[in-house]
């Protein structure tokens, strides 16, 4: 059955209470089309004939009841639960415009006034995209804050009550929530991972650094050419070339901070590695994720690891929470797409125990693999010799990664560097120092 492209105007005002809507039906329809356009711009997957379906739905339920109208339009225009929040936000503006037009100007509606909110939506994709992004940032941040701050707030309240100032955050990952003592760093003896990070950086470097070395496809090395002419009586026999040595990395570090990861990886070690990566790499953006995503790049540049942790607290970056890798990836894709480009090496620290939707994980990994230069997955669980990447998250993600490695101590980073330097050999946790004699 094909939808009626031009629903009977009277039916939009079905009922006595909305009879006056008849003369503004065109405006309502116009606002509806703009509303659908705004939804699309905000990233909502609206079907191609969404406007028609929405008009039909409104014709059935009328404009008497906001809740029914909202439900009807949602049924017609939204097909993913994650789009509901965006829909509701834009619907509020749509509904406000419609009711204002109906209430204030029963005899007719001035187009510019009526279209006010939605006209700007359709004015330009960039403008709408910017605002949509800002809005989503805003709401997303609010949502995150409310969740995270609630967790931390609880912890803080308890901490105050208990007089235990050391209790700052809660783990609530794939297991039960649990409080974690965040003692000052240094309590656990851990090797400094800086050297290991440097070795890793050398192995995966792709950006040209400051030093120059001989090359076959570089620029002429005039000085060397002149020196060589001494041996040939001033005759230039060949022109050596030189180029900048690749020793810099542009990276993106995504760290799963669920408890299943933190049970295996020492938190101090993790912070030190992240700080070393931030120092050694040319650019390194770092995101922590559990059920939410928080960028902590600036915090990692703090003067000391302790200061970094204090910054984490200030950012309300919670340690713990269920692992939603797909959500994290798609959030980064939507909000900070420039974090990854074709020169970016991505390190993803996670156990792969995804609790979110696998389709979303696959979408995120596909985007990451297509966009980044290399994607390396550092899995703390792979330190076990009996480890097999058989969990659903790893099975979904594995086709999209360039290497799956164990990660729990500096030796692992040295070993990753060793494997990556031998470009002809297979790489991965099966070939690391724990399982071989190397």
């Amino acid at each position, binding site marked *: *059955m094909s939808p009626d492209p031009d629903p009977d105007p009277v039916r939009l005002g079905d009922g006595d209470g909305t009879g006056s809507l008849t003369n503004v039906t065109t405006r309502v329809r116009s606002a509806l089309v703009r509303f659908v356009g705004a939804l699309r711009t905000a990233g909502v997957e609206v079907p191609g004939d969404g406007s028609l*379906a929405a008009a039909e739905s409104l014709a059935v339920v009328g404009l008497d009841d906001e809740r029914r109208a909202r439900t009807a339009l949602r049924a*017609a225009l939204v097909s993913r639960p994650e789009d*509901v929040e965006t829909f509701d936000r834009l619907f509020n503006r749509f509904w406000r415009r419609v009711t204002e037009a109906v209430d204030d100007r029963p005899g007719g509606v001035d187009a510019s006034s009526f279209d006010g909110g939605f006209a700007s939506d359709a004015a330009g994709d960039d403008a709408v995209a910017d605002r949509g992004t800002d809005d989503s940032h805003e709401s997303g941040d609010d949502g995150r804050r409310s969740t995270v701050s609630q967790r931390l707030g609880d912890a803080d309240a308890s901490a105050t009550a208990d007089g235990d100032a050391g209790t700052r955050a809660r783990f609530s990952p794939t*297991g039960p929530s*649990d409080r974690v003592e965040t003692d000052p760093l240094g309590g656990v003896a851990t090797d400094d991972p800086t050297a290991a990070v440097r070795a890793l950086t050398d192995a995966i470097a792709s950006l040209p650094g400051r030093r120059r070395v001989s090359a076959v496809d570089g620029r002429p090395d005039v000085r060397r050419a002149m020196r060589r002419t001494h041996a040939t009586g001033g005759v230039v026999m060949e022109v050596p070339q030189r180029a900048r040595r690749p020793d810099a990395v542009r990276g993106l570090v995504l760290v799963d901070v669920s408890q299943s990861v933190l049970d295996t990886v020492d938190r101090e070690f993790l912070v030190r590695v992240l700080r070393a990566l931030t120092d050694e790499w040319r650019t390194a953006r770092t995101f922590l994720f559990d059920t939410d995503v928080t960028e902590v790049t600036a915090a990692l540049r703090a003067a000391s690891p302790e200061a970094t942790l204090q910054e984490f607290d200030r950012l309300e970056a919670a340690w713990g929470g269920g692992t939603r890798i797909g959500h994290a990836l798609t959030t980064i894709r939507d909000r900070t797409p420039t974090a990854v480009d074709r020169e970016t090496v991505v390190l993803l620290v996670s156990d792969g125990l995804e609790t979110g939707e696998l389709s979303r994980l696959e979408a995120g990994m596909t985007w990451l693999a297509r966009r980044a230069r290399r994607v390396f997955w550092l899995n703390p669980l792979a330190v076990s010799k009996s480890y097999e990447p058989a969990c659903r998250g790893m099975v979904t993600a594995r086709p999209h990664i360039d290497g799956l490695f164990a990660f729990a101590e500096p030796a692992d980073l040295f070993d990753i560097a060793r494997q990556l330097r031998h470009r002809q050999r297979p790489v991965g946790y099966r070939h690391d120092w724990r399982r071989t004699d190397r």
Partner: protein
Amino acid sequence: MTDAIHDDFETLTSERLQSLFDASDYVAGDEITTTVLLALKLGRPLLVEGEPGAGKTELAKVLADGFDTDLIRLQCYEGLAAESALYEWNYTKQLLAVQSEHDGDEGSVFTEEYLLERPLLRALRHDGERPPVLLIDEVDRADEEFEALLLEMLSDFQVSIPELGTVAADTTPIVVITSNRTRGLSDALKRRCLYLHVEPPSFEKERAIVRRKVPELDDVVAAAVCGVTERLREESLLKPPGVAETLDWARALTALDGIPADDAVPADDGTDTETDRLLTETDIRSTLGCLLKEVEDVERIDDDTMSALLAAAETPRT
């Protein structure tokens, strides 16, 4: 069988539809009622998504029951093909007919006589007084090729059989498609449907569901059951319990008859003894399999979580 609604869809109201749900003990909020009403009035398929056990399949059953019509169910699975979903030729009968043609009875073997109807075709050719309810269950389990098969049917409510021609529905069936979101559905399929996402129920709604579906369970215990389930959903579980699991658990508790509902009044001195509790740790541990279907989830219920669950069971009573 409930009192069937014999109104025409054109005059059907949300109040009447709500009464249909009530008569079938199906607790539906405004969102479900309005969306179903839209689907009926517009003649569009309804795509229902939500966690397993949220009541998606039940919705189709309730509609069939309420409208006093047939429920035609197509359970999707990986590898589902047209032969199982749409139609199939009766090859044996055709073969016998071809062999018997030597006796002088010549004719095509691609006629109605040799056609085996499968659920989709049966729904289109339904000759009942009222349109049937076609339930395409768990469509995300089927391959994407099967979705393509559905497109023609869902947009025009007709299918093309090369040997016979086009079969169109006299009366548009009520189509309910359910999905557990194990994979994304194609845009083409979603475009043809109205969308309804069944959210996990609130405490009050779940309590009402338990009260209706398991009336033999004491109301106070039902509240405790819902409190525990609600608290359990706050944990990060691989498979959080849905409404179906709550109902299973409620029935299990009833069957075990281990809940001293009448004695569940707190002691006078206010002490919290094991017998005072509506649900004891033993009750929950012994029946946890009704709620959690993954061994990892069961292992996550440690003593702290159990204490939280027991506290949640007590909370609604106060």
